[in-house]
């Protein structure tokens, strides 16, 4: 209980974190992910992809001005936005899947905040040295050396930040042209503003905010908590094995030397054989495997002690596992004092049962359902991608008024037919109609049934459908029929069903 005399502090300053360099399995995995993800991010806009004349040759391009998204051989029009929606659903389900199976694995390995912070740490380490050197520098008074190191570090961070913001805008315009424009001051204001904002956020978030973003700003960790269950793999400390902790190495050495002495002294009075290294003999039975070396704490990028149990700050980056395994190797104890495990493992292992394999945690009904849903959306999108045609039509019946009576008594309905020519050449389209009624079709402003639509564009064609006087369609309320649009050069066809309003004589 805190003291009542002294008013409690409502705010705390950030505790600076100086993570130590670490090597190991998970650190190597993180290096690979860092290089691959950053590589993809920075290189992608520069990949060229020939699409013929009049179309951009950038492999990945979000052309907002022309409402087109280019992704290698795929071209998405605004009406195909369901692809984007589908990808977002897949991303969501993918996060559900990974969170329920592997906990905050996104936070620990792939989140841009983590990846860029990791990169900033690396740069910091190069310039200012490892944990102890950085701590010393932080505590030391300002002098020329400190100033030089700080300026160098901030300059390097700023360079990374500018490159990050700069790479972003290349996704939205032809990258080589834009780079020249940016350098010569010719680019649009929005490009500079975007770069400026992203440079600032990268610099501040990666250099100064770091774990504060994950703890205070990001909603995702709080949502993830709802998706984890007792079988979710997360980073944890086997306290039943490690506790009570103690600087045991030295005491152990002492104990071993005592045993060595016992060999010389011959049979002991306590009846144990010389050379018995059991813990009861060496006097280390009071201590667990944790030697309290603080390696796990020193490498932690969010500045917590994993031995306190699961904490909301933990992004499960697994660097403490690498750090602890290294120590366990050194003191000759089995690895895995800090390890990936699930909540159910605790009771299980306390009861002395063997460790449950990770795959048994991962493959369970919940994750299988997520995988099935994720795959179903993915397969759906791939199928949609292959079955979609180069022409598309929408029909909007004009219902104000529902119909028009012509002077000879025939009934006319009007339809706004939008034809999308997604081929790369101007194309003649024939608009026809399938019905058992004696309908006539007329196109506003066109002779006959054929309309020419320029390459890569949409044409709005007003179409009149006329039912002769006395015909069934003219004198009944609703008649269904089908519009057909055919590309005359390739005979690709597409259709749309709609209805005809007649005079309701009832």
């Amino acid at each position: 209980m805190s003291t009542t005399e002294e008013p409690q502090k409502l705010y705390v300053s950030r505790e600076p974190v100086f993570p130590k360099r670490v090597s190991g399995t998970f650190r190597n995995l993180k290096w690979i992910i860092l290089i691959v993800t950053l590589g993809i991010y920075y290189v992608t806009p520069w990949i060229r992809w020939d699409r013929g004349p009049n179309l951009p040759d950038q492999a990945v391009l979000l052309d907002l001005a022309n409402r087109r998204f280019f992704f290698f051989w795929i071209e998405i029009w605004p009406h195909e936005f369901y692809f984007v929606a589908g990808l977002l659903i897949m991303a969501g389900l993918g996060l559900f899947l990974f969170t329920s199976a592997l906990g905050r694995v996104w936070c620990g390995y792939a989140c841009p905040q983590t990846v860029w912070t990791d990169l900033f740490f690396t740069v910091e380490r190069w310039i200012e040295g490892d944990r102890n050197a950085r701590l010393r520098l932080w505590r030391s008074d300002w002098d020329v050396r400190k100033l030089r190191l700080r300026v160098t570090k901030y300059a390097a961070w700023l360079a990374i930040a500018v490159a990050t913001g700069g790479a972003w805008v290349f996704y939205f315009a032809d990258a080589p042209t834009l780079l020249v424009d940016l350098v010569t001051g010719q680019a649009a204001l929005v490009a500079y503003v975007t770069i400026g904002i992203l440079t600032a956020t990268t610099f501040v978030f990666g250099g100064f905010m770091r774990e504060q973003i994950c703890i205070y700003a990001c909603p995702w960790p709080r949502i993830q908590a709802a998706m984890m269950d007792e079988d979710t793999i997360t980073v944890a400390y086997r306290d039943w094995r490690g506790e009570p902790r103690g600087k045991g190495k030295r005491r152990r050495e002492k104990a071993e030397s005592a045993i060595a002495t016992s060999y010389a002294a011959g049979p002991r009075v306590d009846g144990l054989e010389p050379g018995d290294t059991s813990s009861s003999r060496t006097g280390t039975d009071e201590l667990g495997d944790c030697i309290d070396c603080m390696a796990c704490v020193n490498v932690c990028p969010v500045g917590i002690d994993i031995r306190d149990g699961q904490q909301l700050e933990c992004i499960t980056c697994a660097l403490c596992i690498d750090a602890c395994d290294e120590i366990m190797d050194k003191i000759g104890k089995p690895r895995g004092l800090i390890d990936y495990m699930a909540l159910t493992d605790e009771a299980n292992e306390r009861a002395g049962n063997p460790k449950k394999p990770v795959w048994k945690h991962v493959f369970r009904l919940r994750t299988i359902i997520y995988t099935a849903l994720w795959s179903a959306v993915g397969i759906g999108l791939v199928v949609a991608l292959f079955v979609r045609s180069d022409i598309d039509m929408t029909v909007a019946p004009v219902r104000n008024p529902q119909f028009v009576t012509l002077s000879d008594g025939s009934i006319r309905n009007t339809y706004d037919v939008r034809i999308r020519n997604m081929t790369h050449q101007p194309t003649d389209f024939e608009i026809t109609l399938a019905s058992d009624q004696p309908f006539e079709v007329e196109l506003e402003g066109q002779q006959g049934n054929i309309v020419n639509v320029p390459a890569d564009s949409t044409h709005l064609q007003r179409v009149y459908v006329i039912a002769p006087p006395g015909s069934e369609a003219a004198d009944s309320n609703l008649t269904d029929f089908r519009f057909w649009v055919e590309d005359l050069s390739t005979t690709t066809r597409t259709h749309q069903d709609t209805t005809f309003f007649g005079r309701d004589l009832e």
Partner: protein
Amino acid sequence: MSEHKNEHPDEQKLLEGDPDTTGHVWDGIKEFNNPLPRWWLWTFYATIIWGIGYTVLYPAWPLVNGATPGLLGFSTRANVAEDIQRFEEMNADIRTRIADVELAAINPNDNPDLYNYAIQGGAAIFATWCSQCHGSGAAGVQASGYPNLLDDDWLWGGTVDEIYLTVAHGIRNEDDMNSRYSEMTAFDDILTDEEITAVVQYVRNISGQDHDGSVVDLGGQVFYDNCASCHMDDGSGDQFLGAPNLTDAIWLYGGSEEAIEHTVRYSRFGVMPPWSAEASDAGRLSEPEVRAVSVYVHSLGGGQ
């Protein structure tokens, strides 16, 4: 190993009475002390400073007559006026061309850009000035005699040039000397009830509707004597006089016996204002606007 040592470290802390709490207890539930980060506080102060700066630089505080103008002189009204100005400058060329070119040449094949502009602009003009009477879908209102502009029957002509004249000068108005003008006689005092009934049946006959055949011969004679001078011998009307075609399926005020009889007895006098500001002081539309809305109306399906 003691039982206590096997407890989770957090639990240990709690058991040892170590946790940092605010001292607040509700029903035995203690509130942990989780102070906010200091930078959060600084961010809050920064938003206040930003807010003060914003109200100084931009219009903000309401006063009796308007608001404080702000040091930057920002005004959404001025921005809109600038936008309008810029649009008009952008469109000046196309508006000149629309005013100059022959109306019939504004079609999707000869001048697709002009046609597109006229249709889009015409639709907006129609919605603003014409839809009050003719309806937003241009289908008119039969009960009030506002013509349907979608069909193929035209009182004063359905070519784009005739439509232009109607829009520019209006119909039966006193504001424009060139407005279209004609007036049907009210036959209530001129014809007998029997003659009126007969001519109504005759008109229903020539328009192909149900009618009383026994009076059609008399009605034909009445029609020939009184109506044919404007509506023509065969009842097909005369667009020069704005005399409607009585033989088709389209009726300005309805084709029922009651509606036709009302027209014969008391006549009709539908009016339309002049829209061309050049032709009349009452006009509200510029020449390119009149031409654009004429092209738009012509494109609605009835244009000839």
